[in-house]
């Protein structure tokens, strides 16, 4: 086995179903021992990509290497990979314990260890006591945990997980997340992880790839993806739905001076891809916006007069929805009741000033003109086709 730095290399891989392009010229590499997450809207091709790595789907074009070895010729059962299937794929005719121990013989585990290994896997997903049940006698979440345990028990070099915790409650999910992380540290397993839970992705992953309509929109460390989305799609997908337009006044010493439509100016670090006079779009995450009763623009802090439209209680935080005079809509998260912070309470229907720190201004690449869904199949490189779901 080669000792490349990369565990999984995906090289210009595409997958077509008839005319439909599910995965479109994706190239990426996953490092050895890395926790790598795939994020993206429903139907964007995450499962298809995982299935190609696992060998269940043959790429229409492109190559996949694992540990430096081209996988094209390697049959599924010889790949050093295990997968947790989105729909579980538990064997209906086998009990929980039998499902989990299914692959033991191919790993040449000694027979004497079977029980202990089953116990370990079962404990990991908190399924002790259910070993003798058949899948049909389990709840949805229990089935998912068995599917997870079955893959984990084999301690593969690469583990593909397709929404492995989606059916679990938050408490259990957190516990299992911790177990997964421990396992990864202990065994050095490479994880390729699909999840819809952003918090999960951010806390667990080393790097995240955000996919859209079969393509990778952004591949970065988890905090980068979250804090510095490069495209409007990524920004929006990551929940940063506050978009603003501004004009570049000037560039100096690594800083841009931006002017808002209402004339406010402020400076932000220069990402290095805009010219003076250009009009740009930027995004500010909702938890980084603040509502103030005074206009702070004179302090170099961007402020915008808004009307308060709605406030929604969300448990940990409250969500404020506001609209600007031009009808744009912005969302602000406010953590609920930090003690001792007195702040002007705003009423729905009232007005306020929307402020943010200039350093939380994230410039994004201009979005291409709307492309009809069919164009997802077109070979424009690195442009986000509109998702069929969008």
């Amino acid at each position: 086995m080669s000792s490349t730095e990369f565990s999984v290399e995906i090289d210009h891989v595409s997958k077509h179903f008839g005319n439909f392009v599910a995965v479109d010229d994706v190239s990426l590499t996953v490092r050895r021992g890395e926790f790598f997450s795939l994020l993206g809207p429903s139907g964007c091709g995450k499962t298809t990509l995982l299935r190609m790595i696992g060998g269940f789907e043959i790429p229409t074009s492109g190559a996949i290497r694992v540990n430096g070895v081209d996988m094209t010729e390697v049959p599924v059962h010889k790949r050093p990979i295990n997968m947790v299937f989105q729909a579980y794929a538990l064997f209906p005719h086998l009990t929980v314990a039998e499902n989990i121990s299914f692959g033991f013989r191919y790993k040449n585990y000694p027979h004497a260890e079977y029980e202990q290994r089953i116990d370990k896997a079962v404990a990991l997903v908190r399924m002790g006591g259910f070993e003798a049940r058949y899948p049909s006698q389990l709840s949805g979440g229990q089935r998912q945990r068995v599917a997870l345990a079955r893959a984990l028990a084999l301690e593969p070099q690469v583990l593909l997980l397709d929404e492995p915790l989606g059916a679990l409650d938050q408490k259990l999910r957190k516990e299992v997340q911790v177990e997964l992380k421990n396992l990864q540290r202990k065994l050095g397993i490479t994880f390729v992880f699909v999840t819809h839970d952003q918090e999960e992705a951010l806390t667990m992953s080393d790097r995240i790839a955000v996919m859209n309509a079969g393509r990778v929109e952004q591949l970065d460390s988890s905090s980068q993806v979250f804090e510095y989305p490069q495209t409007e799609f990524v920004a929006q997908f990551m929940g940063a739905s506050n978009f603003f337009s501004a004009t570049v006044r000037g560039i100096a010493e690594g800083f841009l001076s931006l002017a808002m439509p209402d004339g406010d100016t402020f400076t932000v670090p220069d990402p290095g891809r805009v010219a003076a006079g250009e009009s740009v779009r930027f995004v500010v995450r909702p938890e980084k916006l603040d509502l103030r009763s005074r206009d702070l623009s004179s302090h170099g802090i961007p402020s915008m007069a808004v009307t308060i439209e709605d406030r929604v209680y969300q448990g940990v935080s409250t969500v404020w929805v506001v609209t600007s005079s031009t009808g744009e809509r912005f969302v602000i998260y406010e953590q609920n009741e930090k003690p001792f912070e007195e702040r002007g309470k705003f009423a729905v229907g009232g007005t306020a000033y929307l402020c943010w720190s200039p350093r939380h201004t994230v410039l994004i690449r201009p979005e291409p003109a709307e492309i009809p869904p069919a164009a997802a199949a077109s070979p424009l490189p690195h442009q986000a086709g509109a998702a069929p779901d969008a």
Partner: protein
Amino acid sequence: MNLPAESPRVDLVPRPVGRLAPVPRPARPVSWERRLLATHSLLVYLFLYVPIVILILYSFNRSKQTAAWEGFTFNWYLRLFHNDLILRAVKNSLVVATITTVLATIIGTLAALALARGKFRGKGSTQAALYMPIIIPEIVIGAALVTFFGVVEMRLGLTTVVIAHVAFCISYVAIVVRARLAGFDRSLEEAANDLGAGPWDTFRRVTLPIILPGIVAGALLVFTISIDDYVITSFVAGVGATTLPIQIYSMLKVGVTPEVNAVSTLLLLLTVVLIAIAQRVQQEPTPKGGTKK
């Protein structure tokens, strides 16, 4: 005889496939349609067994003629035990049916797998070839086969009977198993592959247990066809290969005696005993709902 429960590893009736609906139902008030189904089934079984009861009854009839009941006798059984011809024919039939069932079931199942999954050139002609034995009248098959054996100088005997039976029983297995394979959840095989099982293990440990009801159904059909086949067998049987159906038909010329009823009765008895044993042995490890401390 090919009874269910031969295979020690796998249960013939696999447990319910991953359904959301939990399968062991509670003692729900028996609904009308269940009652209707049960009644219908009972009637069908009655329909199936009335002639069999008559057949058994007449194995004890003193008269050789089937028409009238002339009193009870064990005589036909005694005569049967001395009738080497019939006994040998029974033995031949059982041997042929068993070998045929095993071979045709294996070959037919393989063919079904290929047809259900594979995309290969010649699939269409394979399918056509598989339908032929069902479509073409047995007498044509028989005549064709015996001519063919003549051409290739293959001596007629039990071997030729088995070959003929296998050749035209493969189709039955293939068709039934093919039906079972339709809509098979491929992700289960993918999961097995994923867990390290090669093609053979995947088949043995996942596919086979799940399609087993289809295979069992096919095997039962084959055994049923083979043990009672007359037309084709009469063409291809050679020296020492007289099977029970041939024996019985040839008795037509001088009249079929209740010995035949007696033989059938004994075969039934044997079957029932074997099934009863199988039923005992099988004693499914019924999925016990969470017996948690």
